[in-house]
């Protein structure tokens, strides 16, 4: 099993949900109202006066087979609107209850 953490501008909220649905991924956890900024050129998302945008995080633990399709879907959305910001990180989920 792989854990995937998708961190994205809240404007992508429905896109991410669509992508999970498309890849038939049922389980996920979502945090609203998170802050952060990109490592290289990404804008800060602080929900402050200067940087009003907000981020959201969706985490899902998935079978490795569906991962490429999901990543491709997410990449597609990110490329459509690069300025909004969408990142996904994948790591091993060792034990699952």
């Amino acid at each position, binding site marked *: 099993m792989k854990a995937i953490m998708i961190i994205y501008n809240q*404007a992508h909220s*429905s896109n991410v949900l669509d992508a999970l649905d498309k890849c038939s991924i049922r389980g996920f956890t979502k945090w609203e109202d998170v802050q952060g900024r990109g490592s290289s050129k990404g804008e800060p998302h602080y929900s402050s006066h*200067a940087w*009003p945008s*907000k981020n959201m995080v969706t985490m899902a633990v998935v079978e490795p087979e569906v991962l490429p399709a999901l990543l491709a879907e997410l990449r597609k959305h990110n490329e459509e*609107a*690069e300025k*909004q910001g969408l990142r996904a990180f994948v790591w091993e989920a060792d034990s699952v209850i």
Partner: protein
Amino acid sequence: MKLYESAVKKPVTTALIFIAIVVLGLFSYTKLSVDLYPEIELNMATVMTTYSGASAADIELNLTKRLETSLSTVSDLKKISSNSKDNVSIITIEFEYGTNMDEAVNDIRSVLDFQKNYLPDGAESPVVFKYSTEMMPIMFISARTSQNAQGLYKILEEKVANPLNRIDGVASTSISGAPQREIQILTDPQKMQAYNMADEQIASLVAAGNSNIPAGSIDVGSDTYSVRVNGELKESDQINDIILGSYQGRNIFIKDVAVVKDTLKERATQVVTNGVTGAMIVVQKQSGANVVDIADKINKALPDIKASLPPDVKLEVILDSSEFIKDSISSLTETVVLAGILVMLVVLLFLGRWRATFIIILTIPVSLIAAFIYLMVTGNTLNIISLSSLSIAIGMVVDDAIVVLENITTHIERGSKPKDAAIYATNEVAVAIIASTLTIIAVFFPLTMVTGLAGIMFKQLGWIVTIVISVSAIVALSLTPMLASKLLTKDPKRSKLFNLLYGPIERTLDSLDRGYAYLLTWALRNRALVIISAAMLFIGSLFLLARVGTDFFPASDNAQIGLTIELPVGTRVEHTRKLNTYLYNLWKDKYPEIEIYQSSLGQSDGSNIFMAMRSSGTYLITYTARLTKASKRERDIFEISDEMRKDLAAIPEIYRFEVTPGGSNMGFGSGGTSLEMDVLGYNMKDADTVANQVANIMRKTEGLRDIKLSRENYTPQLQIEFDREKLAMNGLTMTGAATVVRNRINGLITSRFREDGEEYDIVVKNELKYRTEIEDIKNIVIYNSRGKGVRLSEVGDVIEGFAPPSIDHQDRERVIKVTGFVYKRALGDIAADVQKEVDKLSLPPLMDVEVSGSVQEQQESFSDMLTLLLLVVMLVYIVMAAQFESFRDPFIIMFSLPFAFTGVFLALWLTGTSLSLIALIGAVMLVGIVVKNGIVLIDYINLNKERGATVRKSVIKGGKSRLRPVLMTTLTTILGMIPMAMGIGEGSEIWQPMGISIIGGLSISTILTLIVIPTIYTSFHVGDIKRKRRAHAKKHA
């Protein structure tokens, strides 16, 4: 869930809620009645007390003074003035505006009840009248006839007045100028004396011979019959045959000593309409009834009424006060629509997209219609104030929607889905929108708390704008994002035609952005120069203020002129009539603008209060001239009035005259203003001298016309002085003798002649030829109780003399009011000139001259406005400081205010408008409107700075990106005001100064704000980074 989030997620609910508001608003609109102004309860009450036989001085001492002293304890009293003349004392009590008049009148009544016991015995109980606009007549109808002059009164009463009276809301209709039927028994004093008889005997015999007497009842078999003597006269001719008594065995009939005439009353008002004598029907409305509704009903009933009249009786509506109201309201409605179209064009021009324009424009009807709900709920009417308020608000309601839509568009362009963009973009600007809405409310809400005359006008304005702007903010936060999420697309396709049309506009806007960035860069480099020259400009504009005159209310043309012409007192009515005809023929050709001339002259028969309150006499002519609509003529009422004054001045026999542009119609600004100077002091002679000096000064002052003194000239009078001893010797009493004199000259009503259910007076008096000379009075025979006749000359004398003038009081002090009409000059300037000259006079001791009337009200309301301005500035500062969480930034934004005033002065000066109350209120509104630009600009500059840019870069980048929204919201507000500033249409002229001052102030301040505010901001913030570094260094040192 936040408002905008729910709105976007529940589009059906949102849409339906707003549809419900619109439907409710439209429903309210149909229920609203139309009126000229919000309901104004006039703040005056009058106490009238009669004391027959007392002279002006007696009345002053015994009645007026006593009542004034006790009435001045009534609460909320503003001013108390009085007029004491022969037989009557009239005290006028003015209250603060907004006082509950019912309570005030009750207070007055209780004071009067208390004082009743202390009044002289002969005085009648004081009567209280409540003045209000309600009492003003709403319609004048003239009636002319060629055949039916004798029966005109009856025809009019039955066929016109009675049907009109039945109309809902009509309080009374009265007929004047049609003399009423009267049966006169005109006695010959010589014959009467020969038979040793007095008029009073005839009177009692006629009365006795003209009555039905019930004579009880008798039982005949099983029935009871009542018996009745029908002694009433069946025809007026029967009076001739009434037996007076017998003399040397022969019966004497009335026809032997008198002539019986079935005729018309001798003295009556004569009404001449367009040269033809006729009658006038005055219609008054019930209080609380709506003028337009009643007038509509009357106009609907008139064709039927006309058809029922004999063919030669012509009815014509001379004055229909609803017409002016309707014209004003419809022209204002046009103004609102025109403003809406202009605003729409600006939005389309800047956005270049149909759908976005549609979404923004939708805010206008939704928020304006909400105002109708308010009007209906509070029982208000659709009037000049409420409609003008809509016209003021129309340019501002789109501002919030523009800001929201612009941000949503940016988000969509950056890749968000419309639905997400709508929620998150609205979220970003929600706080700014609420803050800028609050600044507008901070300006308009205090208006609802203004007191005084201005309060009545601006209360509704304050409420409507506050409500409309609040609704527009709610719309911008709910309906706008909802519609944006449904209608906006990521990449709107543009047709070729569109590109062809819009391309140049877009390029112009782009180059405008670039040009502004260059200019700003230059200004930031030359900060000192920019700030100093801006300061110089402001200081320079203050000098303009001295050149702009001040006025209370701008005058407006309501197509009416009122005139009063006074011939020397005692002029016979025939002579007056001749002059009237002459004037009509003269003016008919000279002023083709005048549609209807109506004059009334002669003694008033005062059957209604309105007529009775106007002074009347054989030497007086009052004119009402109705002109064509203001838009259809070149000369306004003020010019024509001035020409008329010249015409009248050229006629030597006229003692004095008064031309009142606007007529006697009540209302703000309709017609002209006048300057009033009060000469206060007890000594009559000194006061007369000073008043004449003041009058002379005023005559010499430019811009004043028709100077008039309130103390009337001494009137000639025949006084009969009885010798009490001689009266006593002859067994006569003073009252008895006086009554006889009155009966011979004025006549004595004995009883009433009844015919067809109508009653007519039967009057006994001396025949006209026996009452034309002083000798005739001296020859009057008075009979004592023993039946012995004594000539008046034996017990008294007739002296020609002058009656003392009436005595006026102002706040319990004797006063002479010197008034003059203002013509084509600012009231404030005239007052200052007159005051300067008056100060040079050396006044006798205990004399004082004060400015009063409009000037005083102007000063009061101007100082009210200044207080309001300070309050508004403070509130706006608080709102801004809360938004920026800073003391410094709102202070910087406040720098746009001086330039707003520069713009106001400049615009007023250029258009030659004077600074009136209306212009001032415009200036107060500007405080809220101009800081909005500053907020938008500084907010974005701050944002750039927080994102880490340098001050200079933040300013230039922020300025460039905010240029379009600033220009757009400013242009919508300015264009929304343009129809108002041009004063299109009747009745809306009074708002012209407001439009002019807002346009002037907003344009100048916007242009300067765009340059000066960023410059000042830079100067204030340039040290920020250095300061931070220093603090940092200190910490780590």
